[in-house]
């Protein structure tokens, strides 16, 4: 089941680094110099001793199927620079086959992992201890949320009666207070929405329109919650998760070869959230794995972008069925082609369709093919040449990339989102395109397109991360 023969690339390894500092520190350790006794075995484990500042070298071991790491260094980073360095050494072919098997200290940890993995599988089936008590707790919480939603409705109605023009001068105090009330009502989803509403007044030109839109969608969520029992199943699940009720993933398990499209973190003062986008080769599904870490610490789950993960996922209900949980992984291998791509028009239509199940979706993951970055007066956009460009059977390296005037007529455009306009990944995207058509994965929605990964036309086997 494992792909012990396939080494990762350095990019894949570096994509695991929790932050820039670790990436640099790890790179420095990715050479033979500080390492001794390094080896690997058939079960895809890699180990080695790394000379550090301490008297005894650090013992580092990595299970690359996870990947999972253990190191005797005191670092709180995860993975630590030694694990990254060891993987880089391995990626560069610098780790010999450990014919004698792993040393005792590594074997101990590996054996423990195998045992725990077996245990977790067996224990997953067990349900809650006391279903009756759990039901009562859930009812109490639902009642609280209902009270919160009703209060929020009154606030929104008050705001609209007095007019949005007054919202800018009122400041964010009122919003903060309302958000705190929603936290008390155990509705974190509503609290988050309210905080975002508070940030809109005065933020951009045309903010009253955005404020009205977001107030209306919050109102829609309130109303939906208050009548959730009359909604069809999937939509009701969406509403519950949007309000902030977590439910265990309940969809049918799905085993596939998942291409890791993107991995990126966003952090606020309390939590680091990691998003990992996957594309199922056989099912054609796109899935989102979320992983969380306490503030300032990297979430534990990390998958190298551009690799292919043989794994079982279980989707959560609602939200368009994107979010999933990683149930079991079997192996990781390097990957080849990008997912099949859509035109801009089809991508926007897919977003529109997804809104039917989740009208609160800001964006939808899509792979675009045949798009070209271009610069308008309002910033960068992606133009669509897929329908207009004549598809000729000329091999790519002999293709004439110079557009004849009027030859390739763009078939409309979507602006890049505000966040993407100033992001360094934009320049990688532009460089890859060179003014020609390119395949890009990202999120498309009412705020525009946020590119997350791209493939060079001449080297489609390499997934280039843009975040």
């Amino acid at each position, binding site marked *: 089941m494992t792909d012990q023969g396939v080494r990762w690339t350095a990019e894949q390894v*570096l994509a695991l680094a929790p932050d820039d500092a670790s990436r640099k520190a790890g790179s420095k350790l990715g050479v033979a110099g500080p390492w001794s006794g390094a080896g690997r075995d058939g079960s895809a484990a890699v180990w080695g001793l790394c000379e550090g500042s301490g008297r005894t070298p650090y013992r580092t071991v990595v299970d690359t199927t996870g990947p999972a790491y253990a190191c005797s260094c005191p670092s709180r980073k995860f993975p630590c620079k030694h694990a990254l360095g060891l993987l880089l050494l391995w990626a*560069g072919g610098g780790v010999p086959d450990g014919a004698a098997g792993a040393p005792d200290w590594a074997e101990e940890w590996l054996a423990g992992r195998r045992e725990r993995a077996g245990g977790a599988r067996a224990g997953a089936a067990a349900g809650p201890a006391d279903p009756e008590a759990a039901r009562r707790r859930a009812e109490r919480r639902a009642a609280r949320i209902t009270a919160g939603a009703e209060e929020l409705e009154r606030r929104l109605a008050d705001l609209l009666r007095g007019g949005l023009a007054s919202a800018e001068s009122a400041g964010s105090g009122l919003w903060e207070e309302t958000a705190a009330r929603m936290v008390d009502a155990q509705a974190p989803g509503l609290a988050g929405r309210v905080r975002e509403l508070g940030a809109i007044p005065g933020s951009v030109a045309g903010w009253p329109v955005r404020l009205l839109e977001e107030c209306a969608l919050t109102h829609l969520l309130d109303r939906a919650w208050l009548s959730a029992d009359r909604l069809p199943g999937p939509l009701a699940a969406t509403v519950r998760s949007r309000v902030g009720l977590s439910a265990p993933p309940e969809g049918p398990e799905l085993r596939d070869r998942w291409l890791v499209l993107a991995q990126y973190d966003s952090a606020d003062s309390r939590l680091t959230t990691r998003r990992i986008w996957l594309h199922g080769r056989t099912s054609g599904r796109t899935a989102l794995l979320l992983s969380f870490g306490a503030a300032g610490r990297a979430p534990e789950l990390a998958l190298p972008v551009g690799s292919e993960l043989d794994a079982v996922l279980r989707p959560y209900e609602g939200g368009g069925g994107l979010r999933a949980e990683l149930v079991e992984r079997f192996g990781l291998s390097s990957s080849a082609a990008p997912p099949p791509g859509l035109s801009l028009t089809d991508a926007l239509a897919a977003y529109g369709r997804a809104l039917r199940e989740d009208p609160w979706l800001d964006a939808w993951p899509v792979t675009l093919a045949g798009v070209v970055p271009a610069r308008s007066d309002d910033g960068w956009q992606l133009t669509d040449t897929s329908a207009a460009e004549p598809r000729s059977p000329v091999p790519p390296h002999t293709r004439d990339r110079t557009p004849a005037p009027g030859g390739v007529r763009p078939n409309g455009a*979507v602006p890049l989102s505000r966040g993407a306009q100033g992001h360094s990944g934009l320049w990688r995207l532009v460089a890859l395109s060179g003014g020609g058509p390119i395949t890009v994965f990202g999120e498309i929605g009412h705020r525009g397109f946020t590119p997350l990964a791209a493939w060079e036309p001449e080297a489609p086997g390499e997934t280039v991360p843009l975040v």
Partner: protein
Amino acid sequence: MDAWEELVTSALLGTDRKPPAGSAGDTAAVALLDAAAVHTVRRRAGLRPGPAAAPLEAAPEDGRRPLPDAARRRLAQLLAGRAAPAPSGGRRGAAPDLAELLPQWLAAANEHGYRAPAAALPALLDAARARTDLRPQALAFAGPRGLWLARLNPEWKFALRGAGGGGALPDPHDGDAVLALWEEGLFAERVALLSAVRAQDPARGRELLASTWGEERAEDRLMFLDSLRAGLGPADEEFLEAALSDRSRNVRATAAELLSALPASALAARMAERAASCVSLDRTEGAERIVVEAPHECDAGMRNDGVVPTPPTGRGERSWWLGQLVEAAPLDCWPRRFGGRGPEEIVALPVTDDWRGELHAAWCRAAVRQRNADWSRALLGSPAAPQATGPGTSSLAERAQLLSTLPAEERAAWVASFIAAHGLSEAFQLLGVCAVPWAEPLGRAVVDALDIARDAGSYPWSFSGVMGLAERCLSPSAAPQLAALTALPAEAEDASPGAGGYWSEAFRRLVSTLELRASMHAELVSP
């Protein structure tokens, strides 16, 4: 006004003042939110692509071959390690310094004629922006697509300055295009064009410059004249001779300097005559020695030939003039002046009245300017000779310059003997002019000297400059020889505390850097 705009107006003013159509009172606000929700979702669900901006001009084709996979990964690693902060203090651990290997990697990749991977271009341009010493190689590697990209981002506008200008240069053989750009181009483009044409066809380059010479501004004339340095030959003499009467003093001085690098030029002959009249062989008091009679005035003829009349503060006028005359005189004139002696015998002759330093320094400058290996060899003297004794120069800066005129192998052998005799403490500057990777006798000399320094009980950071050079310049084939030095030695009684451990660490870093360089180069060679 459409329905959505009406809703927005109501929302702005408040439903108390302006209720939306068809509702009033307490339910107006909720009705407004209901309607706005329907509109918002409908608008989002019905999004269509908007108007497209004019397409970018496509990046020019880059005909170079793509990097092998392993080399592409190595580049990403080097670029990721580039911005790593230099470790503080003298201790750098046993891991190689990746940032220092980037220049070498880029030079090797350019030599093999590889094309930069598009995804690496932004990081490459950022690296070149941060380190000016990387720029020529990084920009050459980035190639036409790199320039194309740099034009789109103001942060990279440095890439558009200097060579290459804003646009691609025409083919030097395309006469009309060359002439058009020469007559209408921006200054930077014209400098780049002149260098390109000069590199292909020196005569054509000179003619191009002559065609507009009279109309150029003085500072432009100076820059253009400077580009004649490449491919300088006897055919340029007439043009340079004319430039000797230029209005600008700097132009005159540069023309004179270029002419003096042409030993057969009329200016060189005039200088030889003047210099010879100042320096003669005295046989009167038994032993033969050189007598110097510095010029008493800087006449119009001398000034016309580029001699600068006013010395810098602190220098005497006469020795200043003498220095310039000897520097500009062809070295071939001296054997005739000294009875057929060769450079070594001439340099060995005693010089009267403390003129020796002045005279030898001027010969050093002449040897460097005229790229004369025989004279350089003579002036360098024996590498093993103790400092500041014997003939020739003992200044390290002069020696480094003289060395650069010798063939690479001889240079390496000379510096190797120097290190064997004097150790490493003064060798840094000399090592800097040696060809990379260091030829065999030199590599061994450096490693032996490091070994001796370790045995002598000093700390490795006293040699961090040489260590750093060795990491970048030693031939990777020296790694096995070094392996024995990485072992942790038993601490000797008179050694500095802990020095053994630090040396072992430094040598391990040296070995791992050499191994890294070996695989770096191997990755670029394999298909």
